[in-house]
């Protein structure tokens, strides 16, 4: 495997304070990187354009799900063999990527979900968030038939086969569940790999509020009804 055939897909919306550091850390790994700027109104675009990465910009804000799908479409067009989604806010640890990719290849799987709750992770997580994620896990199970140990983790790796058979149509945050649905529907072979989440003050502030999960649930239910 050539390292440049691995595409790291980084959706970004107004991440000016951290995007530079996140990308510099990723660049050390020599993978190809594509940043999808979801119509940021801050300086995100200018910071990204100075770095040796591909830069794709949505003219209007569509949501993280849409940004990830744009990244997948772009990487497919560039002939990528492996795809990794990576949040722009610096909460993932770049060293986990190699672990995910190795599992993907060695076990010839199609899809790897990063999990902060799988065995031997050291992620510190506050109580209320833990409960919300637990509920989300079981809701995902009810809706998709797949029970993961973590419900919404931005770090994933998948094969070309998966990228070709998946099309994310949920533009906002319900895409995490849609990934599960599509894995199930296309009978893709999947596994979970423990990853670390670094909860910084920035990622906590920028991240999802617990209350927001109701909106996500609403999107998921509507998705079930209308498609």
């Amino acid at each position, binding site marked *: 495997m050539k390292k440049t055939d691995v595409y790291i897909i980084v959706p970004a919306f107004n991440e000016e304070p951290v995007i530079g550091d996140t990308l510099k850390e990723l660049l050390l790994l020599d993978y190809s990187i594509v940043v999808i700027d979801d119509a940021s109104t801050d300086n995100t675009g200018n910071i990204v354009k100075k770095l040796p990465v591909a830069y794709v910009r949505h003219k209007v804000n569509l949501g993280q799900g849409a940004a990830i799908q*744009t990244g997948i479409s772009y990487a497919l067009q560039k002939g990528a063999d492996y795809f990794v989604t990576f949040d722009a806010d610096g909460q993932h640890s770049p060293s986990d990527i190699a672990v995910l990719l190795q599992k993907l290849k060695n076990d010839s799987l199609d899809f790897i979900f990063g999990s902060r709750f799988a065995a031997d992770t050291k992620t510190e997580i506050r109580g209320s968030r833990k409960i919300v994620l637990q509920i989300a896990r079981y809701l995902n199970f009810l809706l998709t038939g797949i029970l993961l140990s973590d419900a919404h983790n931005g770090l994933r790796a998948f094969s070309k086969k998966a990228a070709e058979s998946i099309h994310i149509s949920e533009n906002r945050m319900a895409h995490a569940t849609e990934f599960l649905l599509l894995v199930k529907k296309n009978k893709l072979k999947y596994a979970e790999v423990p990853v670390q989440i670094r909860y910084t003050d920035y990622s906590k502030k920028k991240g999802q509020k617990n209350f927001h999960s109701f909106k996500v649930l609403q999107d998921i239910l509507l998705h079930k009804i*209308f498609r």
Partner: protein
Amino acid sequence: MINIIQVILSFGILLVGVYSYRRLRSSYLDAILIFGFVLIGLLFVFFPELSNKVAHFVGVSRGADMIFYISIVFFAFIVMKLYAKIRRLEATITDLVRKESINDASDNVSEKK
């Protein structure tokens, strides 16, 4: 004796009828359907006992209640149709923005490495 509400309702029904007819002039079937709805609406407005009779026939005690029940189902259906349309519209916009963004992508990997 004509009540004020009958004037308001018949005016409203005629307005909606004329408006829909102007929008959907495309086929005779539409015209017949619209004409039929307007006619039934006006009949119920000017002969309320008629709606009572129909209501009794289907097992509802009052005509006004029957029309209320039917409207709820009808509007729920309309909301669903509109929502499905909005989702399709959103998918189209997403598609458009995505294609354009990929066409305009800047890739300075080769230049700077």
